[in-house]
């Protein structure tokens, strides 16, 4: 709850911060893939995935997945779909969240019933 409260403030995404560091570490492995599409036909040459996030150090990663999803949508709502730093959140939630959860949340977003604050 503390984390969600923190992200509801307007300036959070603009200052260079912790997420820029995470974004740069996450983007290293993706240097050889075009970063705007996850379903590109280019070959996977190297593996990379969502890095360790010290906000979620323990076994329960549920909030890591949920926060990444919510943060991505807040990021694109605030900054627009093509803002590059939002890619970090998108890749994180795609890697971490089960597809059935993503589909359910996407349906809720489209219907306007998603319970999180975007």
């Amino acid at each position, binding site marked *: 709850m503390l984390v969600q409260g923190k992200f509801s403030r307007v300036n959070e995404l603009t200052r260079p911060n912790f997420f820029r560091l995470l974004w740069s570490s996450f983007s290293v*492995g993706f240097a050889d*893939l075009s970063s705007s599409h*996850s*379903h590109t036909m280019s*070959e*996977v*040459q190297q*593996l*990379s*995935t*969502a*890095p*360790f996030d010290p906000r979620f*150090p323990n*076994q*329960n*990663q*549920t909030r*890591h*997945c949920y926060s990444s999803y919510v943060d991505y949508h807040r990021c694109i709502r605030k900054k627009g779909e093509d803002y590059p730093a939002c890619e970090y959140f998108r*890749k994180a939630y*795609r*890697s*971490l*969240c*089960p*597809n*059935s959860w993503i589909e359910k949340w996407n349906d809720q977003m489209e219907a306007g019933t998603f319970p999180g604050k975007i």
Partner: protein
Amino acid sequence: MSTWSQLSFQDSASPLMEELIMFHDHAMLVLTLVTTLVGYIILTMFSNKFIDRFLLEGHLIEVIWTVIPAFLLIFIALPSLHLLYLLDEYDNPSLTIKSMGHQWYWSYEYSDFLDIEFDSYMIPSKDLEDNQFRLIEVDNRMIVPMNTYVRILVSSTDVIHSWTVPALSVKADAIPGRLNQLTFLVNRPGLFFGQCSEICGANHSFMPIVVESISMNSFLNWINNFE
């Protein structure tokens, strides 16, 4: 996999499992020595006709048989704690796989790059080939690259299941609405088996897990050619 009458651990497939086995051997040695010593003393006590005239106030021997066990306990505790913290060491994984439990099969999702998703059902006994094992083989195995830190996020779509591979010393409950993280590194190629470890209905015993560990090149090849 275990063979019939196997009481011991399966051969390890990860460095942590090697450490666990070594610690187990170490603790078992201490236990065997203590049990043998005590057993021997009991037997000799019962089979002699001596009477102890100096039964009371044996201060020296009481100190000895307090200090030596204390020392043995420290001798067991130090590697135990070392291993306990070693198990929680975390290095950034290169691959994330989601393992979803269903009634009664597992499904695996590799979503880091391309969207790969498949179900893993047990092969029924009547459909087994001659070289396959009964009740633990599956149609689609979970493929992982060797010598790579892998993160598995375990969850469920219905009831509680539990995902485990003993050779990799990992087990986590698959709970609906929760993501449990396991990290491991497989240090040799091969097939490693596990079975659902939380009662989940009629076919709880018939939803096994098979991890197939292959070289990184073969893995990238598999990923890129997944239909």
